[in-house]
């Protein structure tokens, strides 16, 4: 059943999206039907949508799921594949003809596509189905009273999870995707949210407001980064009645699981017994492998073993009774939930005439989990202080803020391995 059909059937009488002008579920459904009427040529076609305004975004995904054959969620306009139409820019609207109306009820299964985060210039589009995307959604009558703060871009896996969770349970979404922690907190207060899904880094900043108790939180969800025990303890102490979950999600595998016992990592016995339809194993290199009930995207075939397990490329440590996450095996740096490819930052640094050699790596940080650090070999006769500023400015011109190297170490020599490549042993772990 499509998203729109599910909502029509549920017939929620609540507010779907809280904003300057509130949008009820019936308005949202009407808006989605309007889009189908107005753009009948999109039926069974491929379409891409972006996120600008939450009400429009939700109406669009409702309109296109079950209606278009493929739906691309664009987190960045630059990612638009060549042959795909971006809605509504490249689409002509036609007043709906009677025969089109007749076709409205015939729905198809839509393939959803989201780009993997943290890749360099070529994004990998990973396909999902509505069923795989909503596997974690639990419908409970009490959930309709929740008011969810949306803190992630809804075109990303984590954000879409919040959107679908809220829509399918008749809850209310409050857009908190913009601005710094203080602005987001103001939005949360204004929207009277009682459920927040955010990265551990954002949670730490929210705690810095010292006013968290002004939000009557019933749901606390952490995801996108490793949730440490101290943060879990702090949140549990502040909100003892709230349901506290930390989520592990592999966007690529289209799977995730939630840990609800308020402890970091996940129970060791899941490795033996599985959990919620998901099977787990850890290999000799400490990689966590997952076997989802549905087949992962064909794009990932090279990472799936004969038993159907997918290498998550996340490093774990197995202790007496727990499996703890250590970080990414492939060297991706996780700055407050945003993934940074070290090679990309190295390439930018190397464009600067003074830089002879560069090695970029993760440095543990108690505020954002990890920061980007760089060892640099530079041409002689440079004033270190001036050069540092120049290099940061140089990086700012072509990198996002979270990708900036925040620590630049000038070194005499950068180690390369036997094959002449930069040695990339893990510098540190959580």
């Amino acid at each position, binding site marked *: 059943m499509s998203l729109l059909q599910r909502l029509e059937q549920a017939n929620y009488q609540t507010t779907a999206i809280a904003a300057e002008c509130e949008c009820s579920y019936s308005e949202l459904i009407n808006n989605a039907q309007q889009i189908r009427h107005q753009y009948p040529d999109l039926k069974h076609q491929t379409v891409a949508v972006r996120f600008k305004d939450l009400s429009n975004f939700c109406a669009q995904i409702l309109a296109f799921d079950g209606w278009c054959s493929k739906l691309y969620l664009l987190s960045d306009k630059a990612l638009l594949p060549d042959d795909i139409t971006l809605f509504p820019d490249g689409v002509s609207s036609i007043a709906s003809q009677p025969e089109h109306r007749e076709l409205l009820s015939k729905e198809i299964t839509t393939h959803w596509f989201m780009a993997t985060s943290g890749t360099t210039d070529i994004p990998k589009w990973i396909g999902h189905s509505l069923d795989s995307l909503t596997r974690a959604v639990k419908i409970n009558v009490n959930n309709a009273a929740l008011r969810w703060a949306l803190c992630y871009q809804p075109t990303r896996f984590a954000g879409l999870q919040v959107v679908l969770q809220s829509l399918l349970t008749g809850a209310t979404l409050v857009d908190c995707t913009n601005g*710094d*922690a203080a602005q987001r907190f103001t939005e949360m207060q204004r929207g009277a949210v009682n459920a927040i899904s955010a990265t551990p880094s954002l949670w730490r900043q929210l705690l810095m407001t010292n006013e968290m108790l002004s939000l009557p939180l019933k749901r606390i969800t952490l995801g996108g980064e490793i949730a440490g025990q*101290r943060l879990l303890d702090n949140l549990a102490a502040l909100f003892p009645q709230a349901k506290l979950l930390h989520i592990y999600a592999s966007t690529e595998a289209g799977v995730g699981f939630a840990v609800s016992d308020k402890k970091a990592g996940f129970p060791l016995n899941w490795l033996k017994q599985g959990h919620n339809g998901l099977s787990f194993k850890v290999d000799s290199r400490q990689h966590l492998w997952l076997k989802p009930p549905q087949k992962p995207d064909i794009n990932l075939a090279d990472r799936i073993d004969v038993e159907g397990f997918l290498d998550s490329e996340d490093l774990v440590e197995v202790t007496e009774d727990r499996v703890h996450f250590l970080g990414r095996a492939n060297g991706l740096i996780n700055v407050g939930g945003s993934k940074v490819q070290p090679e990309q930052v190295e390439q930018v640094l190397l464009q600067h005439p003074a830089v002879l050699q560069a090695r970029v790596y993760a440095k543990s940080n108690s*505020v954002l989990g990890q920061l980007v650090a760089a060892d640099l070999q530079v041409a002689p006769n440079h004033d270190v202080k001036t050069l540092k500023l120049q290099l940061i400015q140089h990086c700012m011109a072509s990198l996002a803020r979270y990708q900036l190297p925040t620590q630049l170490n000038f070194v005499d020599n950068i180690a390369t391995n036997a094959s002449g490549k930069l040695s990339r042993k893990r510098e540190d772990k959580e």
Partner: protein
Amino acid sequence: MNIEQHIKDSLTQVAQLANCHLITDIEQDTVLLQSGLDSLGFAMLVAQLEEDLGIDPFSEMQIAIYPRTFGEFVKIYQLALKA
């Protein structure tokens, strides 16, 4: 050197590096989240202070106290350095 002055200097330095525009005067009761330093800048400040002072009180802090103002932030460092 006076620890408060040291933190203030580091803050100015980091803000320059991180391209953050600080509100003109950082006082005891300046709210950190409204100081103009964003989360990246704040993370850099903590990293810089760890390098200078050899401690990161936030990585070991067991209690649920997160500094709201600049004064509280300085106090956490003063206490951690005494300990």
